[in-house]
């Protein structure tokens, strides 16, 4: 039986055909993946299926019945459920409260919390998804929070579950756990739509895969008949070099160094412990590690957001003690952030206004107090051409660009600053294949031109492909230093998880 059929769905936004005549059908009990680059129309399609957008044309059938889905309520009535990328949970509520919210068990006019806890426990036993019903949601790891979100959807009777980029916020282990959960749900007869742009994951979990490109279905393939390379080709429409070319550069003087650095996080816990390393011109130093092992705090200390509790840092031979972010940038530090929305760009600002932030006080962008928006526009237009930032109008807001184009804008800005040291913190997070390749090429050009680069990444293939030296971070320590030709993904993976690390060092 077909759980969901989509017939000739099109969706027109002003000036943009987001979905172009899309058709596919999903069997009951199937894990069906939809992959595509950012901006290929995946989210639009899901929002149509879930009733948030009305399609311009086309029909949807649920359980072989024609369905009229005009709102998320309609979709829930039809036993569909969406697990959002950003969780819709209230951090201060307990797990049970979060799961029942919106449809609470009552005793008279009062909320029956005891019954809520009992119901949640029964549900979690029934579907074999363990959660602590009385734990405070905000205290739980992200992976468990996602499980709460799934239970919430199941409690509303969902038979078709839509997962919108569910792994974007997860660590590799949490991703594996999620896949176990998804297989469990599949074995219970649930149908799953899995939206992703990570080919490896799709190959891991899906039964069938639909590839979207520019709003069109490029093809629907069985997992067992395809491979990553083929999917990548379908996604971007050309052969993508997933292999990273080797670039040789002569190693120059030390640009950045730190000694016995200790940093505390916002809660006062010491998360960077006795770290020492240096980065020289013409080399890429990669920091590998599972998220949350001190990388964020290290970066915060390096860019002048937090003060180290002890130890020292030097930029081009000058001490960075008590130096402001603005001063560090003047002294040659550039910074590519993983969090484009929070740290990288002012989303409601235009491409033009974002393109010079940080150097807007320099001529010719301003003179004295006066901004020169004409000169800034000229500069931005040049960068838009050079970096192929689309759609290409410098007066579009940064928030209206796709993730890949936002990252290109950040690269354009950071690489045009006079600099000799670049911090690239997860520079390809959330990017599609094409944009990722672009970032790699730019980083290698930087290296070739003699810049020193610190690359912090969770993707091992990225670390191994780009770095000249690799440092492994675990619980705030550097637990290993190696080079790409002396190690493998497996060996690095074990180190990242602290396997084989002398516990005395890390205690």
């Amino acid at each position: 039986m077909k759980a969901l059929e989509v017939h000739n769905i099109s969706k027109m936004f002003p000036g943009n055909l987001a979905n172009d005549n899309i058709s596919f059908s999903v069997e009951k009990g199937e894990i069906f993946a939809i992959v595509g680059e950012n901006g290929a129309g995946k989210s639009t399609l899901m929002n149509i299926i879930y009733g948030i957008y009305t399609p311009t044309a086309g029909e949807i059938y649920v359980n072989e019945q024609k369905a009229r889905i005009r709102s998320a309520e309609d979709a829930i009535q039809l036993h569909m459920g969406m697990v959002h990328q950003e969780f819709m949970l209230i951090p201060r509520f307990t797990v049970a409260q979060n799961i029942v919210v919106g449809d609470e068990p009552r005793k008279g006019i009062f909320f029956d919390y005891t019954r809520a806890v009992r119901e949640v426990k029964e549900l979690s036993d029934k579907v074999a998804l363990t959660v602590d019903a009385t734990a405070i949601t905000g205290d739980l790891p992200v992976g468990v929070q996602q499980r709460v979100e799934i239970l919430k959807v199941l409690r509303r009777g969902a038979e078709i579950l839509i997962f919108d980029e569910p792994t974007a916020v997860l660590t590799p282990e949490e991703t594996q756990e999620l896949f176990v959960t998804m297989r469990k749900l599949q074995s219970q007869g649930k149908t799953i739509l899995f939206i992703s742009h990570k080919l490896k994951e799709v190959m891991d979990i899906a039964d069938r895969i639909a590839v979207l490109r520019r709003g069109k279905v490029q093809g629907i393939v069985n997992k067992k008949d395809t491979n990553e390379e083929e999917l990548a080709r379908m996604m971007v429409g050309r052969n993508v070099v997933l292999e990273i070319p080797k670039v040789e550069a002569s190693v120059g003087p030390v640009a950045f160094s730190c000694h016995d650095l200790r940093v505390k996080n916002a809660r006062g816990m010491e998360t960077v412990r006795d770290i020492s390393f240096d980065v020289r011109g013409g080399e890429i130093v990669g920091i590998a590690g599972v998220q949350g092992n001190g990388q964020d705090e290290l970066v915060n200390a390096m860019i002048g957001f937090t003060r180290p509790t002890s130890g020292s840092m030097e930029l081009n031979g000058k001490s960075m003690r008590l130096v402001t972010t603005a001063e560090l940038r003047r002294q040659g530090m550039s910074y590519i952030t993983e969090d484009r929305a929070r740290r990288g760009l002012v989303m409601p600002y235009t491409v033009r206004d974002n393109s010079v932030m940080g150097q807007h006080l320099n001529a010719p962008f301003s003179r004295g107090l006066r901004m020169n928006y004409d000169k800034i526009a000229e500069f931005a237009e040049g960068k838009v051409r050079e970096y192929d930032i689309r759609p290409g109008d410098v007066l579009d807001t940064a928030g209206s660009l796709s993730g890949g184009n936002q990252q290109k804008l950040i690269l354009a800005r950071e690489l045009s600053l006079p600099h000799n040291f670049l911090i690239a913190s997860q520079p390809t997070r959330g990017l599609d294949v094409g944009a990722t390749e672009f970032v790699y090429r730019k980083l290698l050009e930087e290296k070739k031109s003699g810049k020193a680069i610190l690359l912090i990444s969770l993707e091992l293939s990225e670390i191994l492909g780009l770095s000249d030296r690799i440092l492994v971070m675990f619980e705030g320590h550097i637990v290993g230093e190696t080079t790409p030709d002396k190690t493998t993904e497996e060996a690095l993976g074990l180190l990242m998880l602290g396997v084989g690390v002398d516990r005395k060092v890390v205690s």
Partner: protein
Amino acid sequence: MSENSGTNKFLRIFGIDNQGRKRRDPLNVWVPLISIGLALVVGMIVIAVSGRNPFRAYALLFGDSGLIPGGSAWPREFAELLIKSAMYIATGLAVALAFKGGLFNIGAEGQFWVGAIVATFFGYWSPVAGAFGTMATALGSMAWIAQLLHGAICIILGMFAGGAWAAFAGFLYVKRGVNIVIGTIMLNWIAWFLITNWLVTGPMTPPTQTFTSGTYYVADTAKLFRIMMPTRLNTSIILVLLAAYATWFLLYKTTIGYEIRAIGHTANIGMEAPKAQGINVNRRIVQMMFFSGCLAALGGCFFILGMQYQFPNTATMGYGWTGIGVALIGQSEPIGVVLAGLFIGALRTGATSMQVANIPKTFSNIIEGLAVGFIALQVAVRYYLVKYLQRRRAHADPPAEQEAAA
């Protein structure tokens, strides 16, 4: 989407410049207009329900608001309209500027009065007033130079004091994490009671007078020029228009404005793009509060140097609170604030006349309140407006059924 639609033409007439956006958002103009329209309609209903004739009420309200020329009383009404509006525009600009930087300066009220009392002091304080008096006598027919200088000194020092008062709240916010709304509102009351319960009834009262008479009167040289005899219209409206232009210039043409708006756009918790790009967010916030306080205090200077010539014992609060409404109706854009200030000024001017028809003047406050209320509901107004425009567009252009993804 045609670039030459009616709304766009309309906008071009208004000349609203939203540096941050590619296409000017026509809703920024329509939402306040519709909110005012709704307020007038609901206001009519309220008047009718109270058993009075709404058409007569509005005829009186707007007939005597100074907006419509004609009649022997018009010059006076027009003068009153501009005098009142100047003060509302000043406090409105103060609130709007802070809004642009992502902060709610609810303390325009206190900053207004701090500006007023400081302007009063330098208006009468004998070392200053005496010097300018001598100067005026010496200059003879050129005495206006002394008046210009003395007035300017009073206004500059008044604005500086109001700015410092606001900057203190900004300082508490960035250094101690004191919420800006709490900080500014507390400073309102501190300013108000320090001034009215102590300065005005104590050290600044002439010794020969009773405590009910207010402070010394300012010297003639401190008074604002009157520009439309015999009405009491003075230069305040010109000064406030210059201030509005300066605010617009600050926001949209200077590096400080660029940074302030970037901070405002990222004021949500955890957003730190400007900081990561090396902008000194804390310093800008304190500066912005200073400018905001200066603007509110400018209104206070008008109150003293253009109307009262002393700090009266009978002063009542309200100019700063009104400024919040003006900023909201004006959508925090300087040009919008000017128009909204004129609208509120007109309501207040015409309100007295309604009493002739036995209609309490508080009805104009009701309309004002409703207008702000509908502005506060602007999410809803925007929603229905977008829906309406979509339907019309779909009607005019059936093949491309479009909808804006909200």
